[in-house]
């Protein structure tokens, strides 16, 4: 176990809700509809719920497995020893780093396509990453603060879902449950990229003041995310035709486009801009987790690691170009994340439970 975290650095249990939600709601929510409909078509909202239940199970595992002041690195070290455990930890750090990179790259791609086709990724990236540095440098308290505000302030965007309902065809959703379980499961697998990132819980766990009380809030956080995702997918399904939605890359943005108010039109500009406030917690929390991991594993100075990692993120963002490559990378990372969350973590849980039982019986 590392140095115990002082009480003043810890966060109230209910803030875990915002941590979980803010890291799950990201760029994915602007585009996930077209991917989930591939297998389950308009029954896909059920897949969203199934994927959400999966997340609930993992969260439950997390709170079962971790004890106060303990994170995943402790467990891995205990189980697999310093080197193998360290290697697993290192892979997780890299994974969060890539997750952070891809979040920014996906967002910049949207900006390039919808707002500024000729924007310089370098300058925008620098401007954005200095902001990220400023957040992480303030410590976990500020990271949580930005997660909280990054969830609360953009809630107003949910009201924009009312506008597309004017053109809704509710019979799109009918008949319900006309797809096989396999299709539903395949669709829910597609959902994972959007739900990823909550595994940062395994790293920030020691920062929670009363982990037992936080358990329910973590579940509420996932529940809130599911409700938001289901609502957005429903609205998209009633708004778009089934064939159309498969060809649209960002269905949510398309819906914003039709919003007309007396003083504002083309709402997507405002929506995409406001989305910066959603991406920011996404990036900072994953990057914080990644650098925190490096600190736990190699005792690196976190301030310095953040700078190095931010430079890596910036370079990667400038180098990755073109929609194909970006979506390929995001697909890879979501596959890695899928296996990590749904296979590795339950595996770890089982091994750790057995290990504890054996140790106790001795």
């Amino acid at each position, binding site marked *: 176990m590392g140095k115990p975290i002082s009480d003043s650095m810890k*966060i*109230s249990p209910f*803030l875990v809700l915002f941590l979980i939600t803010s890291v799950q709601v990201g760029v994915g929510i602007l585009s996930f509809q077209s991917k989930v409909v591939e297998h389950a078509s308009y029954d896909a909202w059920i897949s969203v719920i199934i994927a959400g239940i999966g997340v609930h199970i993992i969260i439950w595992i997390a709170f079962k497995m971790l004890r106060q002041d303990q994170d995943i690195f402790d467990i891995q070290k205990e189980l697999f020893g310093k080197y193998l455990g360290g290697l697993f930890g290192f892979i997780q750090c890299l994974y969060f780093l890539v997750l952070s990179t891809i979040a920014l790259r996906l967002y910049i791609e949207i*900006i390039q396509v919808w*707002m*500024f086709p000729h*924007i310089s990724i370098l*300058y*925008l990236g620098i*401007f*954005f990453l200095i*902001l990220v540095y*400023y*957040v992480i440098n*303030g410590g976990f*308290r*500020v990271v949580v*603060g*930005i997660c*909280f*505000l990054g969830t609360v302030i953009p809630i107003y965007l949910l009201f924009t879902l009312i506008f597309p309902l004017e053109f809704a065809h509710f019979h799109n959703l009918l008949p319900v449950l006309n797809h096989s379980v396999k299709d539903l499961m395949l669709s829910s697998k597609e959902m994972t990229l959007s739900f990823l990132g909550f595994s940062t819980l395994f790293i920030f766990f020691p920062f929670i003041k009363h982990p037992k009380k936080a358990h329910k809030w973590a579940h509420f956080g996932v529940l809130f995310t599911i409700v938001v995702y289901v609502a957005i997918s429903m609205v998209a399904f009633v708004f778009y035709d089934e064939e159309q939605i498969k060809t649209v890359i960002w269905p949510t943005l398309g819906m914003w486009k039709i919003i*007309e*108010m*007396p*003083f*504002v*039109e*083309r709402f997507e*500009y*405002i929506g*995409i*801009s*406001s989305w*910066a*406030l959603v991406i*920011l917690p996404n990036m900072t929390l994953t990057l914080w987790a990644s650098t925190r991991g490096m600190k736990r594993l190699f005792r690196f100075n976190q301030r310095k690691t953040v700078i190095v990692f931010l430079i890596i993120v910036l370079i990667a963002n400038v180098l990755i170009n073109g929609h194909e490559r970006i979506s390929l990378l995001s697909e890879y990372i979501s596959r890695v994340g899928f296996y990590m969350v749904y296979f590795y973590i339950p595996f770890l849980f089982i091994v750790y439970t057995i290990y504890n039982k054996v140790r106790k019986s001795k």
Partner: protein
Amino acid sequence: MKLFGKKNKKNKSNSLKQPNNIVELIDMCKTSSDFMHYEHSIKKQTIWLSFYKSLVDTEILHKDILENLQEYKHYSLEELKESIPVEKVLTTKDVEQMQNRMLRGYILLRLDEYDQKGLLINAPLKKTRNVSVPEVEFSVIGPKEAFLESIDTNLNLVRNRLPIPELMVKELKVGKLTKSKVAVLYIDGVANEENVNTVIQRIKEIDIDHLVDSSYITQIISDNPKSPFPQLLDTERPDRASAVLTEGKIVIMAAGSPHALIAPANLTEFFSSFEDYFLNPVIASAFRIIRFFSVVFSILVTPIYVATLTYHYELIPKDLMGTLITSREVVPLPPILEAIFLELTIELLREAGARLPTKVGQTIGIVGGIVIGTASVEAGLTSNVLLIIIALAALASFTTPVYQMGNTIRLIRFPFIFVAYLFGMLGVVLSFCYLIVHLLRLTSLGRPFFEPIYPPRLKDMKDSIIRFPFSRNTQRPVQLQTEQTERYSKRDATKKKDIDE
């Protein structure tokens, strides 16, 4: 290092001459023309008096001191002491004490010119103005008293409102040359001890040669002195000072300053006027919400104008576009220059108005506002729409009840405008993120400054953006971590009688 003048100059300026004995002391003081040192003969004896005539009230000297000494001859200082009916009289040999006391308006009285021992009599001259109406934090209803430059009067104003023995006043001296009195006020048993100690500790550590106003203290003891946001609230109202003391806050007063400081502060307090407490909670809350939105409006409206007109004119509906086009048709400048030009004009007007005497200042406001505004629109330098927007933004920024915060709000919009020009709407949001993160990082005496918004504390929300009735505000703010959290019993305050009882 030489470039910045950081050479070792230690102790050069600090070492003022210290006299070794009384003769040296008198000689040293005599070099200043306002120092009086003479033999005074009264009916039956002669005495030696030494004092600064600029610090001593001669009326006290003549009426209270000299007149009482005339009756009979005194042989010792003790006898003299008994005859003088002044509350602070002390006999001493200590040269340093004599010097310090004489500089505070004491008279040194001795029987002989070369006596080592002397009597120090308190007879300070106090010239202060009378208690007047608060001008910075004016309120239509409610008390009409304001703090003064005299710390004793200020303490009196507060203690009159809080006649309890728990009200503690800790006096400290700050400033090597000014030796200003600084008082830290708190209610013992209510205020968090850690906070009190932090304040006292930080004030003790102040190393400065002069302290003329409490704003010096704000700048020195703030957690982040580089931030444009004031982290200690200043007030000139004794009623506000006593009200926050009961909440468990700490009030700092400095001699010579008509503003007291309140610590720890949080962001929402800077947008609440004390008059809010004199109004019905519904109305007060409505005004607070208006103020809150006006601040957001004031910061964001010009950047949004610049962003929209530079990059996203698609945002504007067709009908509105017509109005904008007719207004901007003849303007040759890009929106950013237009906005900066007008914003600077408003800042100029404000600054000129603030520096000039009141009567001229008003004229400047009218001349500037009407003449320059109309002329620049007619000349085609700016558009009508922007003129309206900027005037509104300026007006909105003046709704902030705390002057220091008003300044901050007006200034932080300039970076917003520049970034809006670079990245459009995205720039506005990103600058807003910078602002939020900055606020999140700020602390006031180590307590979060952005509270109760973050960390979210519903209990403290009851008196932040909206104000709940007194009967619902029964707890002291969580932010202060007070020793007694309950102010009064909630059950009694909210007890309801049954119908027709």
